[in-house]
């Protein structure tokens, strides 16, 4: 269409305008004839005043050139050993997950609007929901939200709906990831509800202070286990009771690794569980998978998609998207949520990852998350000028340490040595250990010794 002949080096599309439109010139001509127009330009019904000349000043490149270009760009990222967590975790993803999830029937399919021809994905999502039901002890899990923060936002809007007559306060812990707090505020922007925080005591919920904060206006209390600082909560059941006493929902934030070992949400009175999967994808610059599970009582208020079983005309069990009358394409402005496209493929990956680990593998990973955190705290504590852990609590995956040196300066100095940690306050740093960086703890400790 651009006309003229160019060498294959100059023209990366082999003569086609787009490398992904299969038409030969002869086919295009024949198709235009069939339609009855002279050229493609005549197919467009756009007023002249707003026609665009087509030039974005974006040069097409060959596949090989783009690989090089992106690799060169990404090579500007420094190679650092990351001891970073705070809601985004790098657990080792087995090769089987990459290869099986990359099968094109999964990767290139759409939402399962025709269930008879999408049984595979529907079953995989049903299995994902089932794993979340087992992990949380709650009866209903949806088949994904974007990430932990958006799942928390949806939990809060659910609480506002089901407790509308009660009030308009959502309570969150003082130690909360900035991104989760900011997204929660965004999701509540369209309601009358506001967010207040309650204090922590040595890294976990200050139950007595929470009891003073909570009142009859409260529609939801949110807590996390483990917390953003990696501490394990010790009085979750009491938080559940507080919420119950005030007719508020108890929303618990967690992840599948922690859920396999720590107190079962249903047993501590949780009404909603949200979080990020932390499995299925490694470090991906914050890309994640939002978990959402709740009690059957709130089934009609659940945001997002649900897969259920039904029977086909041969009497066999089959799977289908269900209860779609809650969803935006049917209920429009009265829908439980605006979510449509979610993170289905990441949910598939997470389910594969859990299945690959099996119950022993998953629980072992959780146990190691406790022992590794405790070990790294012990190691850091031996360093002059460093006290770890700051909180006299049990830990999961990560710990906070106090440093004599200013935390941000220590963090920067470590980065020049090739290590990334969080600086979370003037003299507080946070370190996260998983199976992907456990081998480098000795090196990290040596580096901290050198710069602390």
């Amino acid at each position, binding site marked *: 269409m651009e006309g003229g002949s160019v060498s294959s080096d100059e023209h990366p599309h082999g003569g086609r305008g787009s490398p*992904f439109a299969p038409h030969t010139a002869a086919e295009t001509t024949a198709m235009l004839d069939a339609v009855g127009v002279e050229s493609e330009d005549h197919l467009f019904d756009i007023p002249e005043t707003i026609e665009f000349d087509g030039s974005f000043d*974006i040069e097409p490149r060959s596949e090989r050139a783009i690989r090089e270009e992106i*690799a060169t760009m990404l090579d500007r990222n420094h190679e650092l050993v990351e001891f970073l967590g705070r809601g985004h975790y790098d657990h080792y993803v087995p090769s089987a997950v990459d290869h099986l999830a990359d099968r094109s029937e999964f990767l290139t399919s759409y939402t399962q609007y*025709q269930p*008879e021809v999408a049984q595979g*994905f529907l079953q995989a999502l049903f299995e994902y929901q089932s794993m979340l039901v087992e992990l949380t002890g709650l009866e209903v899990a949806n088949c994904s939200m*974007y990430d932990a923060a*958006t799942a928390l936002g949806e939990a809060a809007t659910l609480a506002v709906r089901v407790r509308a007559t009660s009030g308009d306060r959502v309570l969150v812990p003082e130690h909360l990831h900035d991104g989760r707090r900011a997204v929660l505020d965004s999701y509540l922007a369209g309601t009358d509800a506001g967010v207040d925080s309650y204090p922590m005591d040595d890294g976990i919920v200050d139950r007595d202070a929470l009891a003073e904060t909570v009142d009859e206006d409260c529609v939801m209390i949110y807590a996390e286990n483990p917390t953003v600082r990696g501490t394990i909560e010790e009085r979750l059941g009491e938080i559940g009771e507080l919420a119950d006493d005030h007719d508020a929902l108890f929303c618990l934030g967690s992840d599948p690794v922690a859920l396999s070992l720590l107190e079962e949400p249903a047993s501590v009175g949780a009404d909603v569980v949200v979080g990020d999967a932390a499995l299925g994808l490694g470090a991906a610059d914050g890309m994640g998978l939002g978990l959402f599970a709740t009690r059957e009582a709130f089934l009609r208020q659940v945001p997002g998609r649900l897969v259920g079983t039904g029977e086909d005309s041969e009497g066999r069990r089959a799977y289908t998207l269900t209860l779609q009358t809650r969803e935006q394409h049917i*209920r429009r402005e009265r829908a439980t949520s605006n979510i449509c496209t979610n993170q289905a493929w990441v949910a598939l990956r997470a389910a594969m990852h859990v299945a690959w680990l099996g119950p*022993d593998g998953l629980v072992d990973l959780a146990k190691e998350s406790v022992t590794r955190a405790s070990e790294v705290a012990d190691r850091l504590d031996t360093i002059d000028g460093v006290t770890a852990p700051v909180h006299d609590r049990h830990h999961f995956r990560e710990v906070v340490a106090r440093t004599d040196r200013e935390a941000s300066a220590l963090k920067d100095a470590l980065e020049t040595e090739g290590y990334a940690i969080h600086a979370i306050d003037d003299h507080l740093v946070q370190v996260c250990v998983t199976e992907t960086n456990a081998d480098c703890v000795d090196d990290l400790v040596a580096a901290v010794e050198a710069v602390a």
Partner: protein
Amino acid sequence: MKFDQARWTRETPEEGGEVYEPLLAEKSSRAVETDDAPLPDDLTRDGIELPDPAEPELARHYTRLSQMNYGVENGPFPLGSCTMKYNPAFTEDVAALPAAATHPDRSTDSVQGNLELRHRLADSLARIGGMDAVTLQPPAGAAGEFTGILIAKAYHEQRGNDRNEIIIPESAHGTNFASAALAGYGVVSLPSADDGRVDVDALEAAVSDDTAALMLTNPNTLGLFERDIEAIADIVHDSGGLLYYDGANLNALLGRARPGDMGFDVMHYNVHKTFATPHGGGGPGAGPVGVVEELAPYLPTPQVRETDADEPDDGEAASDDASYERFEPEHSIGKVHGFAGNWLVLVKTYAYIARLGNPGLRDTSAKAVLNANYLASQIDYDIPFEPFHHEFVASADRDAADVAKRMLDYGVHPPTTKWPEIVDEALMTEPTEAESRAALDHLARAFDRAAADDDEALETAPERTAARRIDQADAARNPRLSWHALDDE
């Protein structure tokens, strides 16, 4: 061509019945206790029961499930408004580069590569949309709508304007209504004119001092270009409202017209529709949002910009060495994602746009519109509204859902059914540029064969798919949403 989808069945020994590929938990399930945990007993659960397949079993299970699933690489997938096109393989490889796997809390200095890619992608999207600034944070199209409406809301509030309504054409995507409501707005539904386009008189009557924005896609869901878009923009702007562009149909316009030039103030891009990043059976997508300069201060935080580095003398050299920083826009709405959105999807988007460049982007719309018009010319169905661009809505003249089920037997994914409701028994069809003439002919035969089949064949279809017709009403009446629910029966 004859189609039979793989179907795996197995007898269940207990009941003597038969199921399709059993659940993992039905194959091998194991309960473990957690009493030897390095924690006090009162902080741990008692135990957990999960599937426990060996890797070969796992591989077979998911391979079988994949065979019972239909994707773009299996055949035509003309879901109207969903834009299912071929997803190039190489974009998966670039997104899997180890250097792309970074933690979101990395320092600005240590992830210059990521920031450069983000900056370049935002710049390309801005040029494609005719916008001045773009955020990559929204993780899906609906999240982009929500972001755009929050931006409009912040803009009005900053000016002390108390506006509480969003106007949306009745034919719009359902997410428009839901996103507006989520942001706290009342929704005013706008009827279509007889020609399927926005009724300009009705719009005149609907706008007021309460109008925060009009949400519109162009071409609309009937594939029709809103030819009065400039008048529509004037009406909305004169009322003090903003014009929002739903990018779901941008594939039809690439290189032909730009939302910014039409008068739109804010728009979202569906990268999984326009820029061929795989939809993954329901995500992840990404829904970048573009705005005009006046709205840039309201974008989510962080944004990425080029720093005023020590520019070399000749202005041209610097891009290889440019450095980038994150910043918070002056009146930022805050955040719509816990971190910075669906990064790996954005890498694929960048690669796809780079592969196409100007000629490819422009040819995309040409071939998408040609394919829709060619397919329509080859089928024997009533198509009440034209001239359409990339998609058309045919009327089935019998139950569109039955026609769709029958089309499955002919080896194609059917169109979107029964929507938009403006057309009776609608089959909303979008073949995209990725289909060859031969594939379109095959698709046309599927349409016409389904039309010619008798009622019984339609009502009992499909017969060649992994499962036969599923009773969805029963599934909704009696929800069983996990394998635990099956155990309870």
